[in-house]
């Protein structure tokens, strides 16, 4: 896959980045409007205003959701900018944590949680950011069908000399999944993960006894 083939991701990235900026403006207006109402309520004695508590609670909910929207739009903006450059020095934890927060709802629909374990030291690798994120996403997604409901997929990042490892492990595997290898490796998705690994100078392995996937990343750029 060449850079030319990725025009679509660049296109998506630019549009999303532009609109997350607009969303920030909208959130800023909502925040100031709610803030103005709070300011005005603060000038009126509590007993003189009917439904004072309801209004206060309602404005607090607006504030909470503005912050929630702000956090989401920030993450989405970071994600959109992943397609800005072909290769970049990437903090693997920051990047994968951002992806995990954006995939929270997708995981929740599968009744699975994604936990990204922060390494003791930042693991920074020059890589292709958008392809790496797609690979990580597909590795997590490939584990959804093997993971027991109401359990967790954890993603750990380990630095080994100049290489890095991203370990995907399930806290509980479904009873009918005897082997991850049998369950995952024959799928079309797995073939795509292997192709993506070639692009990011990586290698994917299944550790069946430990019920883990291991993505090895070499400094190839």
């Amino acid at each position, binding site marked *: 896959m060449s850079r030319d083939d990725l025009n679509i991701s660049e296109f998506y990235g630019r549009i999303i980045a532009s609109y997350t*900026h607009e969303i920030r403006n909208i959130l*800023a*207006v909502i925040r100031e409007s709610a803030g103005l109402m709070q*300011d005005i309520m603060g000038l009126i004695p509590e007993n003189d205003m009917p439904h004072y508590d309801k209004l206060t609670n309602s404005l607090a909910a607006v504030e909470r959701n503005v912050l929630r929207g702000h956090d989401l739009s920030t993450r989405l903006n970071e994600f959109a900018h992943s397609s800005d450059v072909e290769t970049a020095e990437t903090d693997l934890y920051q990047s994968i944590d951002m992806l995990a927060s954006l995939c929270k709802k997708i995981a929740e629909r599968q009744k699975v949680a994604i936990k990204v374990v922060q390494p003791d030291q930042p693991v920074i690798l020059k890589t292709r950011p958008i392809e790496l994120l797609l690979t990580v996403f597909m590795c997590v997604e490939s584990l959804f069908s093997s993971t027991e409901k109401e359990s967790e997929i954890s993603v750990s990042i380990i630095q080994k000399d100049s290489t890095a490892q991203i370990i995907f492990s399930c806290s509980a595997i479904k009873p009918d999944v005897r082997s991850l290898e049998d369950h995952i490796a024959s799928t079309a998705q797995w073939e795509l993960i292997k192709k993506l690994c070639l692009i990011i100078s990586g290698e994917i392995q299944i550790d069946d006894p430990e019920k883990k996937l291991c993505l090895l990343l070499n400094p190839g750029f």
Partner: protein
Amino acid sequence: MNIRVLVVDDEKDFVDQLSQRMELREYDVTTAYSGEAALEKLRSYNYDVIILDVLMTGMDGIETLQEAKKLKPLTEVIMLTGHATVETAIEGMKLGAFDYLKKPADTEELIKKIDAAYSRKSEQDERIQQARADEIIASPRSVLRDE
């Protein structure tokens, strides 16, 4: 005297809501919905602090900052930024902006920055006045020379 603040953003609703909140806190607030309109107001009036959005249609925040600093070098500027414009805001600080805040900004934090910016401007105003007074004392004829 109340602190004179000029709020500049092309998001009209944002400017209107923020300015009303600041008026409740007894700031003397003027609004402008573009960089060009802000400079027009700045030519005819002195402000202590300008709240300036980085990303505006027409004249952007950096251009407006540069022109504003030429017109009124002592007026302090606080930049408001979105996601992708933090680096632009940092560039703005290199060009003389006092500070920056990310949108949607916490109003209390913005108020603190406005007050800090006003303090710096006041100190600079005082130093300039003191320097002028010292010059007059040292050389009374300098008053005539200025005129």
